[in-house]
């Protein structure tokens, strides 16, 4: 396209176009189609009022033809120069100005700074002409953010425009309100917005609701007293307004379900009416009655129905209806179906609905469309939480998705697998994940998948060997992406073993770790985090089992320090490891002779620029010079997990201090008691007061004459001004609260206060608000604040969990049969994990049934301690003791504090990626994780007597299990995969094992 084409475009006949094309060679053939279209459009005048000048078209064209980014930048920069010059000329006609602004917007969209023109855009919104005003609003919403300095110039205009008679002006202003009003300026426009909720035009009502919703998102407390308006608008005559109201209600309900339970009936009846096509035809979309409204309603119902049997029962009929009526051939029909599945999996389970949901899922998975497969996998992930057996029918489909070239689908499938992982299939799944992790470049996702691998490995590892190997693989391929905490966890795990007094197993674990690390050190370019782990383990346990000599290990450590000489952390780890090895040697009474390379390394470190390295090197030197007894108390062998007691009060210095004071020294004054500090904090207080009294006031000043009247007028005047709002005193109340503290502060702020006082009088109305109402609404605010915080996640999901658990009770017998007939051995595990799932959620009745059992657990736990320590020997089928390994802590918790357990379970299930929450329990969650790892492994062979009463057949299962092991490792063939992954029913939340089993 060239400069002339614009003119050509106006000629109506396309033959003319073609002629010009042939005569002028500079048309590129590729652009012909576009040219035709634009020509046709321009002739038809579809430009409407959005007319653009030739210059703008030229600009767009030349940018379109730019062959490189540099060329484009050059064009844009020269355009900016032109605009800068032109825009500041005096007396630019409005139309011209409007076009400049559009060009500015365009330039900024291309990534260039157009800030020089912001002020002109702001000026434009003051214009009377709607045309110009709208352009101005468009530009400012795109240019400015809510905290921009220029906003203050806009607020006044917005206020005026919101009161305009022309609803299009109001709409334009509302649009700007959404984008440009921040917490501080909300009070300035809130009264008008509330008034607009009753505007005769439905488009305005709709947008006013959205604006309020936006305020709620930005600052919930600012509109908390207006929430009732959303309920009112739900009954609006216009279905569009009702539909729009669902957006804020969805947010409100997400934050606080319980206050909206009364709306269940209304929502259900609305949904029913929509599904029965009672809405005007105009709301149909692809033959579906108002599908977008249906989707929103289903989302809301899912929230309201979760963990509420009574509410859910109201929904069954209508959801069932929609399942039947949905047209699964159209995209939007499937969207509604998917939403139904989500709803069914969230509300209190109903067998019939679950069946329809399963049907819909299988339709999704069998479809050719990748979109539907994706939704199917997602829906499957939701549904297996409550009816685990449906995964089995879809094994093949799931594996197909896993091998699909579509990355999105693959990731979704990995997410599903992650949810279905348990001890029998963990090896296959984690192997798959690691393979996939190696194949991608996206660091974000790599990190996520690595942390998932780590989490699964920690929970379900069938053997120590496997665990160490898996961790090695993860570190090798994604070492630098893994959170350093994971490395620390690994070290702690190796140091502490698996939380039991089973030294043989622990030392086996350690020596296998040492062995594998020595092997891995041969590879080039290891990630820093991994090297740190390696150094630490080698230092701590390198010589522990006597297999390797100290000189061999120290040689390896020196190699590491030399090979990665630019990584200070690794070097520091290596030096400390060296120190430990030498210390253990000395403590064991052996003679220490340093290798020559070690000597040279030390010399280098003693003169290192890094003080940390230097200190470590000096410490090493000092330790080597000490005698065996001293060394042993400095660096005892295998004591990394023991607590070091620190006397924070420094009581051992008491004598010394006493002595000094007696000699006339000044006693120590704590920082807080020193006088200087007092002053500083005072200043800070003053600052604060000043800041708080600098509130902005957005209401226009009334004429001075009216002051007197305004002071007197009856309260009715105020109330007529703000008609529809029941609680119309929000803006002032915030001022009052801000001005109050300033009264007590120093001179600067009194001045301010005085001025505000004057203003207050002049504004009149404000003084008439009774103080009680203020206090009322503030208390309301705080209440809302609180409910928001705690209502959202914990309570909600906790209760939901209990529902899952009840469901589990209902379906477990048939599921057992099915699983047993299909998959023999492993089905036991499934069943067990199912029951584990069940009882791990201590809903009230669960706890009752739990109590006697867990006392049994404690008893059996005692016996297990006395068992020979070969519990950890997974490879051999000799483990036939029925005593499950238990973590005493967890049991006690289960008995005494069911609530903490719930919350931890919830934590685990909700945030998958977080391995261990760094809470108070931090220290021994490690232990429990380890213990659990062991448990789940044994579990696969043994049933847990107290929980399931299925003591029989333990040994046979173990055999089945061990014969399965090598199979899995050897072949990743599809059918093996099917067996492995399909056998998943209840494992959707493997963490829950931990709660009953330790």
């Amino acid at each position, binding site marked *: 396209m060239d400069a002339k084409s614009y003119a050509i475009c106006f000629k109506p006949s396309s033959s003319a176009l073609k002629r010009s094309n042939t005569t002028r060679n500079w048309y590129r053939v590729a652009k012909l189609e576009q040219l035709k279209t*634009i020509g046709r459009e321009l002739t038809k005048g*579809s430009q409407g*009022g959005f007319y653009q000048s030739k210059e703008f078209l030229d600009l767009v064209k030349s940018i379109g033809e730019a062959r490189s980014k540099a060329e484009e930048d050059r064009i844009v920069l020269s355009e900016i120069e032109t605009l800068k010059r032109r825009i500041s000329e005096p007396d630019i006609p409005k139309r011209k100005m409007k076009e400049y602004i559009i060009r500015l917007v365009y330039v900024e969209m291309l990534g260039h700074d157009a800030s020089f023109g912001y002020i002109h855009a702001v000026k434009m919104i003051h214009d009377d002409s*709607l*045309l110009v005003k709208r352009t101005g609003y468009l530009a400012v919403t795109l240019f400015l953010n809510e905290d921009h300095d220029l906003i203050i110039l806009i607020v006044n205009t917005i206020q005026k425009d919101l009161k305009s008679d022309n609803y299009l002006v109001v709409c334009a202003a509302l649009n700007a309100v959404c984008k440009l009003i921040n917490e501080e300026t909300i009070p300035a426009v809130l009264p008008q917005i509330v008034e607009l909720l009753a505007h005769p035009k439905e488009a305005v009502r709709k947008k006013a609701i*959205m604006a309020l919703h936006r305020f709620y998102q930005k600052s919930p407390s600012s509109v908390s007293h207006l929430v009732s308006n959303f309920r009112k608008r739900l009954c609006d005559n216009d279905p569009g307004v009702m539909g729009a109201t669902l957006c804020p209600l969805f947010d409100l309900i997400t934050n606080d379900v319980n206050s909206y339970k009364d709306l269940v009936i209304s929502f259900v009846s609305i949904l029913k009416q929509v599904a029965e096509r009672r809405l005007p035809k105009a709301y149909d979309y692809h033959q579906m009655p108002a599908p977008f409204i249906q989707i929103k309603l289903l989302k809301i119902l899912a929230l309201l129905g979760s963990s509420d049997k009574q509410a859910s029962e109201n929904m069954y009929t209508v959801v069932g209806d929609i399942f039947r009526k949905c047209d699964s051939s159209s995209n939007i029909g499937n969207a509604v179906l998917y939403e139904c599945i989500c709803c069914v999996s969230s509300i209190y389970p109903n067998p019939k609905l679950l069946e329809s949901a399963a049907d819909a899922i299988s339709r999704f998975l069998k479809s050719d469309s*990748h979109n539907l497969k994706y939704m199917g996998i997602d829906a499957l992930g939701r549904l297996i939480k409550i009816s685990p057996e449906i995964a089995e029918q879809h094994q093949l489909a799931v594996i197909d998705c896993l091998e699909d070239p579509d990355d999105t689908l693959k990731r979704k499938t990995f997410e599903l697998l992650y949810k279905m992982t348990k001890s029998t299939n963990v090896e296959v799944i984690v192997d798959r994940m690691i393979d996939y992790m190696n194949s991608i470049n996206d660091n974000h*996702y790599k990190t996520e998948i690595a942390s998932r691998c780590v989490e699964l490995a920690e929970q379900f590892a069938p053997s120590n060997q496997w665990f160490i190997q898996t961790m090695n693989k993860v570190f090798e391929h994604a070492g630098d992406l893994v959170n350093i905490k994971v490395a620390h966890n690994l070290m702690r795990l190796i140091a502490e073993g698996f939380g039991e007094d089973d030294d043989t197993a622990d030392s086996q674990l350690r020596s296998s770790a040492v062995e594998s690390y020595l092997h891995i050190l041969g590879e080039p370019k290891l990630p820093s985090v991994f090297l740190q782990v390696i150094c630490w383990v080698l230092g701590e346990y390198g010589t522990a089992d006597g297999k390797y000599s100290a000189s061999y290990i120290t040689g390896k450590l020196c190699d590491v320090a030399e090979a990665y000489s630019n990584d200070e952390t690794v070097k520091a780890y290596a030096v400390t490891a060296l120190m430990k090895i030498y210390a253990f040697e000395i403590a064991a009474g052996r003679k220490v002779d340093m290798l020559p390379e070690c000597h040279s390394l030390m010399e280098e470190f003693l003169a290192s620029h890094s003080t940390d390295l230097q200190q470590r090197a000096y410490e090493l030197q000092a330790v080597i010079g000490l005698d065996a007894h001293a060394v042993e108390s400095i660096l005892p062998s295998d004591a990394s997990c023991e607590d070091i007691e620190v006397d924070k009060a420094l009581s051992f210095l008491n004598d010394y201090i006493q002595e000094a004071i007696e000699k006339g020294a000044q006693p120590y004054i704590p920082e807080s008691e020193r006088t200087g500090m007092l002053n500083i904090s005072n200043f800070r207080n003053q600052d604060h007061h000043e800041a708080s009294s600098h509130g902005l006031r957005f209401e226009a000043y009334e004429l001075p004459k009216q002051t007197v009247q305004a002071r007197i007028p009856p309260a009715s005047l105020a109330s007529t001004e703000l008609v529809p709002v029941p609680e119309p005193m929000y803006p002032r109340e915030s001022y009052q609260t801000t001005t109050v503290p300033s009264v007590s502060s120093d001179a600067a702020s009194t001045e301010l206060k005085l001025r505000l006082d004057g203003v207050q009088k002049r504004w009149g109305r404000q003084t008439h608000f009774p103080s009680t109402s203020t206090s009322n609404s503030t208390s309301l605010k705080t209440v809302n604040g609180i409910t928001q915080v705690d209502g959202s996640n914990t309570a909600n999901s906790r209760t939901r969990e209990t529902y899952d658990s009840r469901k589990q009770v209902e379906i477990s017998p048939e599921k057992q049969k099915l699983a047993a007939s299909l998959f023999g051995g492993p089905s036991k595990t499934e069943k067990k994990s199912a029951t584990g799932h069940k009882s791990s959620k201590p809903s009230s009745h669960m706890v009752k049934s739990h109590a006697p059992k867990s006392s049994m657990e404690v008893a059996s736990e005692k016996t297990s301690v006395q068992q020979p320590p070969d519990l950890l020997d997974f490879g051999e089928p000799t483990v036939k003791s029925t005593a499950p390994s238990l973590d005493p802590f967890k049991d006690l918790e289960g008995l005494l504090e069911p609530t903490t357990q719930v919350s931890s379970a919830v934590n685990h299930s909700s945030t998958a990626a977080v391995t261990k929450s760094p809470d108070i329990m931090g220290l021994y969650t490690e232990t429990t994780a380890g213990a659990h790892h062991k448990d789940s492994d044994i579990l696969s062979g043994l049933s847990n007597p107290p929980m399931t009463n299925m003591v029989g057949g333990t040994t046979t299962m173990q055999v089945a299990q061990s014969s399965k092991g090598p199979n899995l490792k050897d072949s990743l063939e599809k059918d093996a995969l099917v067996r492995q992954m399909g056998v998943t029913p209840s494992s959707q939340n493997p963490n829950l094992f931990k709660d009953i089993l330790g």
Partner: protein
Amino acid sequence: MIKAVMVMNTQGKSRLAKFYEYLSVEKQQELIRGVFSVLCSRAENVSNFIDAESIFGQDSRLVYKHFATLYFVFVFDSSENELAVLDLIQVFVETLDKCFQNVCELDIVFNYSKIHTILDEMVFGGQVVETSSSEIMKAVEEISKCFLSPFLLSCVKMHVDDVRFSTFALFLI
């Protein structure tokens, strides 16, 4: 909530970018580039959904649709349904098509502010307010009409000697 709407062509040039949370110009460009690099590596016949967490942060999904030379991209969070957003793109494009009869890339470039108007009627403050393309059309036409009256006047004043303008004006009415 919808976080962003973008239209870009197959060469990665952005044709429309609207972010419902404020982002600096540099950040916007970075995101646009990020989205494009993912989009252009997608094969044909794969799903229209992309996990966008690596570009837009926690809890963000991306749905795109490829029309001729353009990608239409919506970024949103978990409160929306992917398939429904796919249809929302459909509605958007259908509306554009109604507006411009047989819409093409150039229509979007040249009618920059009109596209914004259409989008504003559909998505308001990050929430979907209207999903019927005929309703959107009505609203946009209403706005155009208001624009017209002053514009037509100016046309008349300009001594209608050119055929182009008369044709133009006729169609506008």
